[in-house]
């Protein structure tokens, strides 16, 4: 079970969180013309990376904040975690 550093609450076990997918996906702005391809990329197309991956988790049984977690998908190592509005350098 992963041990995730919630930027709001501290180290918590994985069973307090729910997974939310790729954090690098950006929703196209509202009211903007979007091509079929762009929309498909946003809704469906994901890379399923092996290695370092920035992903979303929600601390659902804790502070309910969505956070970003930089994790290795192969080794499960967690490098850094960020608040939702934090820039990932």
């Amino acid at each position, binding site marked *: *079970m*992963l*041990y995730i550093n919630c930027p709001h609450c501290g180290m918590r*076990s994985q069973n307090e969180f*729910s997974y*939310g997918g790729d954090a690098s996906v950006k*929703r*196209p702005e*509202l*009211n903007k013309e*979007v091509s079929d391809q762009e*929309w498909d990329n*946003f*809704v*469906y197309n994901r890379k399923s990376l092996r290695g370092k991956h920035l992903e*979303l988790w*929600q601390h*659902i049984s804790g502070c*309910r*904040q*969505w956070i970003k977690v930089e994790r290795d998908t192969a*080794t*499960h190592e*967690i490098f850094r975690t960020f608040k*939702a*509005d934090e820039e990932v350098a």
Partner: protein
Amino acid sequence: MTQAFRIENGGLINRDKKLSFKFNGKTYFGYEGDTLASALLANGVHLVGRSFKYHRPRGFFGAGVDEPYAVVQLYRNGETEPNIKATEQELFDGLEAKSVNCWPSVNFDIGAINNFLKIFLPAGFYYKTFMWPKSFWYRIYEPFIRKAAGLGVASTKHDKERYEHKYEYCDLLIAGSGPSGLAGAYAAAKNGAKVILAEDKPRFGGSLLTSDVNIGNQSGKDWAEGIIAELKTMPNVVVKNRSQIFGYYDHNMLVMSEKVSDHLPSTKKYHPNKRLWYIRAKEVLISSGSIERPIVFGNNDTPGVMLSSAAKEYLKVYGVLVGRKPLVFTNNDSGYETAIEFKKHGVDPVVLDSRKNAESEIIDEAKNLGINIKNSFVVVAAQGYKKVKSADIASISDDKKQLGKIENIQCDCICVSGFWTPTIHLASQSGNKTKFKEEIDAFVPGQSKQNEITLGAANGVFSLDETLKTSFKAGSELSKKLTKKDNEIAIPNVVEKKSSQHDKFWCVPLPKGKNYKRFLDFQNDVAVSDVEIALREGYRSIEHVKRYTTLGMATDQGKTSNLNGLQLVSEIENKVVPAVGHTTFRPPYTPVSIGAIVGREVGKHSKPTRKSPMHLWHEKNNAVFVDAGVWLRPRYYKRGNENLFEGSKREAKNVRTNVGVCDVTTLGKIDIKGPDAAELLNRVYTNAWMKLPVGKARYGVMLREDGIVMDDGTTTRISENHYHMTTTTAQAANVLSHLEYYLQLVWPELNVNVVSTTEQWAGAAIAGPKSRDLLQKLFPNSDVSNEGLPFMGFMERDLFGVKARIFRISFSGELAYEVNVESDYGNFMWEKIIELGEEFNIQPYGTEALSTLRIEMGHVAGSELDGRTIPFDNALEGLVSKKKDFIGKRSLQRSAFIAQDRQRIVGVVPLDKQTSIPEGSHLVKDDKAPLPNPKLGHISASCWSVEYDNPFSLAILKDGKNMIGQKLFAMSPLKNKVIPVEIVSSHYVDPKGERVRS
């Protein structure tokens, strides 16, 4: 029967407490502190079971967790449990156990005929033999295999025992209480670290219990006892015996199974049977020791052949002689230690050492005691069927290829030592890539992967002095990092005998003209010849060889067989062992009972049960409940002998004619506040929200980004910047997360807060033509007329002193209201409604009537919003704004979603107006068409229309828009029904929606 093989004195058992137990129906005696295995051996019982495949007799091979043979069925306190190792099960008074894998008895087993058919049961025989004819599989092969396979019988009764889970955090977790574990624990504890020390056996000390060493002028055993006693007094230390750490998971999470009660005749009141510990450790010290490995020779599975360390343990810990004429077969000094113990107890062993010459302090001691030692000698084959009677032995050439003249010597047990295999399972599970250590012919942990360190024999270090030094040091350093304390510890002086180099010899060649079975895996009956076949047939990867032959796949997971298997493959393939590699170690290290894994989450405890504040009233009024997600909701209120159909029909009819009341507390409720609240609603719902006035409710539909309907419900504007959203019961949690996602990640600029208020409000839906009259009684001073509280209106009023929210919304399609009060007043509200509704013939109605009412109105619910439909499919396209953007809008332009013949909701009536259509039935054009009959749609919900008194269903039908009036067939192969039907509008009752506005 007397305990003929128990020595007069010695051992760690309590001879003052005699225990009686039964094995295969026969009564025996043992002592407190025995295992079932040691007690049976004390009584001279060596035959405990039959092997898995050939049903060959099975005895005891080890004395602990590595035991491959002695798996029994245990009976305790009216329960039975399979797959119990006799070597681990502690004896208690009244214990009963039986052999497995044998029928009709362990002494005469019909399955043993397989032993003579073994030529037909080679590696991969399952794959080859039972392939044809196909029809034989279900009728003949499968039942036969089922009967023959398995290690005991699982109980089918409900388990009365209780199991607990515990979450724990510590600085240092130590797996194993041998010398390295004790030293590490002691040093870390002295530095103030929070330490958990786990030992799988009942006694602490590991190898110190049986080895002839001296630490700080005490025997190893006494030193261990002293350390444990001191650790137990320290508040920062948890010391646990009977506790097996069986898995090393991500981020230094380890799981331990503590056997709390298995050693007792029955579990004490308030105690669990087992406790599963989830331990998050900052640092882990793996001191799991090593397991002796066998040498392979002919008939090496005969009862009486066992590990030399096990023979020593039975003698030193339990005071039991495994034989009176022991033959020790060794390739290293460990065999001598066992021989010396025999000799000290007046038994004359013969030692066969595969080495030509070897010299060490241990060997000198054996020689001084006058033990008969034969160098360059091996056991060619054990003789005897149910028990070793003699051994064929021979000298062996220096290159280990040629056997000398075979002679037969009498013996009653053969104690084998093929050197030691470090127990690296936990280290490997942590992700540590193991490396092969040439000097010991075995794998040891490599670079640490998580915060783990492996020390002592588990790391391939067999010198006690070195183990203690490194472990004290590691304990100090690991704890110093965390506690910043550095207490100096005096490392005690160690006296141990030096060993000589072991012989890299593991398998005795077959003598000419002999075809002895030489077993590698003793539990799965995998012999040298099976691996040879697998390689001959082209299997190369060790993972494939393992699966084809089942080598190492039994419940002991190859603890004694893996390395010899690798040696064999490497020899045939002419590769070095590290090039062959080992198979993956996976948790659990040893079988864990399912009860321990499940813990308290059984039956009703497997999920929370949520009840509304009116639950007690429902119970008192004969409600029949149904699970709605985690909620319990009244399905109908039973009157007399009514069944569900009759009761729900009565309740629904009463709503259509008088007034009914339904508990709608379970609906999800979300409080939304902030200046941008309207903007948020406008973005998540498909329809327009910017102009909703205060005091008004609106129905809304929300989509996922892929255009599929996610949920529907009404949202009410309570005040300028305050909204009350309702969701379906099932989607409440998802909708909240959905809103939080957009507010926190996508549109953080919106100034809005959302919070779940589902449990803050109790809700009652009052529905029916007389509902306004009732509402007037409830709120006598309020104007609840059609003008005062119009359809989709909202007001806050006082309900006899209680603040209430009144919404004029309707799911039933009748004139209806929903009244909410704070949860604590829910029952007060409910009873008032019932009391004042009496004059209007009010009846409570349950979810079944609720469904009937919404189905015949064509209102959609979860069975239509099933994660596969878009607004159009549910006839909700009128609610999809063309002007503004919202979540999922872009997806609605997908070609499939705008197809002309897109599926759409319709009503379905059986032509005979009698036959109810099973939900899930498929709609087809031709009921006689050959399979696969093209499916046009499916029945999503069915009811008995109380308005028209005939069955009515909703369906999602291809090109539904143009199908009204068509005649189709509803087919349910599950219920074996074919029903001719007519397609009608989904709005079966009051299609213009006049009632809700009346």
